[in-house]
C-alpha cells in the first residue's frame, strides 16, 4: 500500500502542472480544468489510501457536505458575481489551511523548522480567511465599498503585524505558554480585516490576486510542515500565479504593492476634482448615437465595471450584431483593471456570446483608436481618463489608459455626472468630440438598437 499513494501524488502533481499549462490558450483551457480535477481526485483518493488515515466515516460526510455547498454556489451565482465567489472560495481554502495548522500545533507542539512552517501557514491562512470574507463583503456591497481610513491606520496595522510575528517567533524558539497560540490566531484574523478596510472597490483586482497568492503560500507552507511535496508544488504554482496577476494589476494602475495595501486611494484628490464639474458637456439621445454608429466603419467599445452592474453585456451583443450586419467593424478594448478582478470583462462578454477574437488587450488596440470612428465607453471611467497622461497632480497620473480620446467621436454611457469610483473628474467628458449618453447602460444600449433599423 505504501507505494500506491506515492504514485497517486506524482500523478496529481503532473496533472496540476498540466492543468495550468493547458489553461494558457482558450482552445485547450477546458482540458486544463479536466486535468486539474483529475489531479485533485488522485490527491484525495491517494490520501484516503494512506495507512495513517483510519477513520473514514466523518471524512466522507465532510466531503459530501462540502460538495453539497460548493456545487450550488458555482451554478447559482450569476457571472457578474464571479469576483465575489472567488473571494469566498479563497476564504474557505485559507480557512482549511489555517485549521490544519492549528490542529497540527495542538497535536505535536512542534518547534524549530516545522513550527516556522506552521506559523507561516496559520498566519497566512487566518489573515487570508478574514481578508477574503471582507473582500467578499465589499464586492457584494454588504460592507461599504469606499475605503475606510483613519489617522494612524498604517501604524496600527504594522504594529499589529509585528506583534503577531513576534508571538510566532516566540513559539518557534521554544514551547510557549498556552495563551500565545490563541492570541496569535486572533491577531492574524484581526489583521486580515484591517488589511481590507482601507481598500476600495477599484483596487479589488489587485487585492483578490494577492489573496490568491497568500492562499497558495499558506498551502506551500503546509507542505513544509507535513513534508508533503505535492502540497509544496500546488501551493507554489498558486502563489506564483497570484503574485504575477497582482504585479500585472499594479503595473496597469502604475502603483506599487505597498501603495495598494497602504495607500487608500480615494482620499488624496478631493481638492482638484470639483473645479471642472461646472463645465458644459454635450449630451445626446439614443437616436443621435444610432445615427452616428450606423454611419461608422470602425467602432471600439470600452466596457467597465458599470457594464457589469447594469448587466448590459447581452444588449451590447445585440448592438454588436446589428452593427456588424450593417458592415460596421465592432471590437472591444479591455483594460487590465477594468471590473473587479483580472479578466472580469472578458468573462462577461463571453457570457453574452461575444467571440473572444473581438476582445483586445490595451497594448494591442491602443494604436487603433486614432482610426476608429466611434469609441463607446460603457461604465468605465478612470481607465479612459486622459489626465493620467499629462496631469501630474492627478492620483492616477502615469496609469496606462485606453486612448479613447483619439477616436473621431467618443460616446460615454453614464448614469449621471457623478465621478467614478476613485472620485476623480474625467476631462474626457468635456471634450468637443465627446457625446454623453445619460441613462442606464442596459436600457440605453437597447434604445440604440431600436433606433438602428430605421436608418438602413
Amino acid at each position, binding site marked *: 500500500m505504501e507505494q500506491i499513494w506515492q504514485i497517486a501524488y506524482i500523478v*496529481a502533481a503532473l496533472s496540476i*502542472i498540466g*492543468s*495550468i499549462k493547458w*489553461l*494558457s*490558450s*482558450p482552445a485547450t*483551457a477546458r482540458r486544463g*480544468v479536466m486535468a*486539474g*480535477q483529475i489531479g*485533485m481526485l488522485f490527491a*484525495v483518493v491517494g*490520501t*484516503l489510501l494512506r495507512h495513517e488515515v*483510519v477513520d473514514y466515516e466523518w*471524512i466522507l*460526510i465532510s466531503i459530501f457536505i*462540502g460538495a453539497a*455547498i*460548493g*456545487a450550488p*454556489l*458555482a*451554478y447559482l451565482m450569476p*457571472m457578474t458575481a*464571479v469576483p465575489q*465567489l*472567488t473571494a*469566498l*472560495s*479563497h476564504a*474557505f481554502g485559507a*480557512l*482549511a489551511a489555517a*485549521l*490544519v495548522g492549528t*490542529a*497540527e500545533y*495542538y*497535536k505535536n507542539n512542534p518547534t524549530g523548522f516545522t513550527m516556522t512552517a506552521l506559523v507561516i501557514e496559520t498566519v497566512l491562512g487566518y489573515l487570508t480567511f478574514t481578508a477574503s470574507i471582507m473582500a467578499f463583503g465589499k464586492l457584494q456591497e454588504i460592507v461599504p465599498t469606499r475605503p475606510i481610513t483613519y489617522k494612524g491606520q498604517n501604524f496600527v496595522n504594522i504594529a499589529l503585524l509585528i506583534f503577531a510575528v513576534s508571538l510566532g517567533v516566540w513559539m518557534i524558539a521554544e514551547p510557549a505558554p498556552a495563551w500565545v497560540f490563541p492570541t496569535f490566531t486572533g491577531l492574524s484574523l484581526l489583521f486580515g480585516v484591517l488589511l481590507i478596510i482601507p481598500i476600495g472597490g477599484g483596487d479589488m483586482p489587485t487585492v483578490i490576486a494577492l489573496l*490568491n497568492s497568500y492562499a*497558495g503560500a499558506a*498551502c506551500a507552507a503546509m507542505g*513544509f510542515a507535513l*513534508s508533503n511535496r505535492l502540497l*509544496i*508544488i*500546488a501551493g507554489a*504554482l498558486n502563489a*506564483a*500565479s497570484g503574485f504575477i*496577476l497582482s504585479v*500585472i494589476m499594479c503595473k496597469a494602475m502604475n502603483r506599487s504593492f505597498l501603495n495598494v495595501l497602504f495607500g487608500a486611494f480615494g482620499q488624496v484628490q478631493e481638492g482638484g476634482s470639483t473645479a471642472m464639474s461646472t463645465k458644459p458637456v454635450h449630451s445626446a439621445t439614443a437616436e443621435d448615437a444610432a445615427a452616428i454608429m450606423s454611419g461608422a466603419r470602425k467602432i471600439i467599445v470600452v466596457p467597465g465595471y458599470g457594464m457589469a452592474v447594469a448587466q448590459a453585456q447581452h444588449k451590447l451583443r445585440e448592438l454588436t450584431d446589428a452593427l456588424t450586419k450593417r458592415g460596421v467593424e465592432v471590437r472591444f478594448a479591455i483594460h*487590465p483593471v477594468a471590473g473587479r478582478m483580472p*479578466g*472580469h470583462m*472578458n468573462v462577461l462578454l463571453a457570457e453574452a456570446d461575444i467571440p*473572444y477574437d473581438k476582445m483586445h488587450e490595451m497594448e494591442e488596440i491602443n494604436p487603433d483608436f486614432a482610426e476608429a470612428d466611434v469609441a463607446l465607453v460603457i461604465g468605465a471611467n478612470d481607465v479612459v481618463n486622459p489626465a493620467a497622461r499629462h496631469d501630474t497632480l492627478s492620483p492616477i497620473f502615469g496609469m496606462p489608459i485606453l486612448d479613447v480620446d483619439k477616436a473621431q467621436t467618443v460616446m460615454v454611457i453614464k448614469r449621471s455626472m457623478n465621478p467614478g469610483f476613485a472620485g476623480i473628474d474625467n476631462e474626457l467628458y468635456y471634450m468637443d468630440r465627446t457625446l454623453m449618453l445619460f441613462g442606464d447602460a442596459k436600457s440605453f444600449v437597447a434604445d440604440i438598437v431600436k433606433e438602428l433599423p430605421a436608418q438602413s
Partner: protein
Amino acid sequence: MSPEIEMSLYVLILAVPLGLQLVQRVSPLLHTPLMSLTNAISAISVVGAILVAGAGGASRLSQVLGCVAVVASTINIVSGFLITDRMLKMFRKKDK
C-alpha cells in the same frame, strides 16, 4: 538540515519558477478562469485536512478541526472547478 527539509526546499526552488513561467504564458483573456482554477488547486490543502481528520487516536479537537477543514476545502475545490468550467464553456472564437 534534515534530508526531508532539504528535499522540500529543492522542490520549492523548482516549483516557483515553473509556476511563474506557466502563468506568464496565460492570455489576459483568461485571467479570471486562471484565478478560479488556481483557487481550486490551492484547495489541495484538503490532503492535510484528511490526514488530520482521519488520523487514528486523534484528540476530539483535532478531529473537529480536521472535519471543518475538509468541508471548507471541498467547498473550495467543487466551486472552484465548476465555476472555471462554466466560464470556459462560454469562450468561443467565431460567430455562429
